[in-house]
C-alpha cells in the first residue's frame, strides 16, 4: 500500500502550486473547492488539482499532513497557504497575488513572445492594462503592448 503521506509530500514538493480539492479544476464537486479554483483561474496561475475523492487515504492523509480538518487546501512552493476562507481573504487583500509574485513559478505572458515578465507581474490579472513607465513597459515588455494575457509557465 502506498503511503498517503509520501504521495502527498511528493505532490506538494514537486508542484509549485497544488490544490487538494474535491473534484477537479474542470468539475469541482464542492462549493469551497470551486471558489479556490475560480480564484486561481482568475489569476491565471498554473496549478495542479489533486482530487481527494479519488483516494480515501489521501482524503484523510491531507488533513493530518497539514493539521487542517477541511478540504480544499492550497500549497505554494511546498508551504500550506490555507483553505477556502484564507485563500479568499488573501485574494481580496491582494496578499495572494503578492505571494505568487514572490514565490510563484517563473511565468511569461502569451501576449509577447520573448521577454520575460518579472514575478511581480502576477499581481495583474489577465486583461489588465499595464502602465508605461519611462521608455519601457514596466510591467510588460517592449514586444508586447497590450493587456496581460494568460500566464504560462516559462519553458
Amino acid at each position, binding site marked *: 500500500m502506498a503511503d498517503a503521506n509520501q504521495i502527498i509530500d511528493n505532490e506538494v514538493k514537486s508542484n509549485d502550486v497544488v490544490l487538494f480539492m474535491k473534484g477537479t479544476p474542470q468539475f469541482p464537486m464542492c462549493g469551497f473547492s470551486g471558489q479556490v479554483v475560480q480564484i486561481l483561474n482568475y489569476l491565471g496561475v498554473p496549478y495542479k488539482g489533486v482530487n481527494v475523492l479519488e483516494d480515501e487515504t489521501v482524503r484523510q492523509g491531507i488533513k493530518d499532513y497539514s*493539521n*487542517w*480538518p*477541511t478540504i480544499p487546501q492550497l500549497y505554494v512552493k511546498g508551504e500550506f497557504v490555507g483553505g477556502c*476562507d*484564507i485563500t479568499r*481573504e*488573501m485574494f481580496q487583500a491582494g496578499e495572494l497575488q503578492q505571494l505568487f509574485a514572490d514565490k510563484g513559478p517563473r511565468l511569461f505572458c502569451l501576449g509577447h513572445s520573448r521577454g520575460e515578465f518579472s514575478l511581480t507581474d502576477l499581481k495583474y490579472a489577465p486583461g489588465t492594462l499595464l502602465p508605461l513607465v519611462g521608455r519601457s513597459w514596466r510591467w510588460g515588455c517592449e514586444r508586447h503592448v497590450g493587456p496581460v494575457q494568460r500566464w504560462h509557465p516559462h519553458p
Partner: protein
Amino acid sequence: MPMNAGEIESMIRAALPDAVVEIKDLAGDGDHYAATVTSSAFKGKSRVQQHQMVYAALQGHMGGTLHALALTTLAPDN
C-alpha cells in the same frame, strides 16, 4: 447530528476565553455556519495558525459533525 450555534460558540470560548464570537447560520439548516472570532490570543499568529486554534477548540468536530464553518479570525486592534 449537526451542531447548534450555541455549542460552537461555547467550545470556542472554552479554549479562547476572551474571544468575541459571532455566528451566522448561513442556510438556516443548522449545518452551514459563518463565524467571526476575535481574540487577543491571535496576536502575532498567522491566519493558518489562528484558524488552527479555532479548529483545535472545536475538538475534531470541524470537518465531521460540523460540516461547514466559514471562518474569519481577527486580533483586536490595540
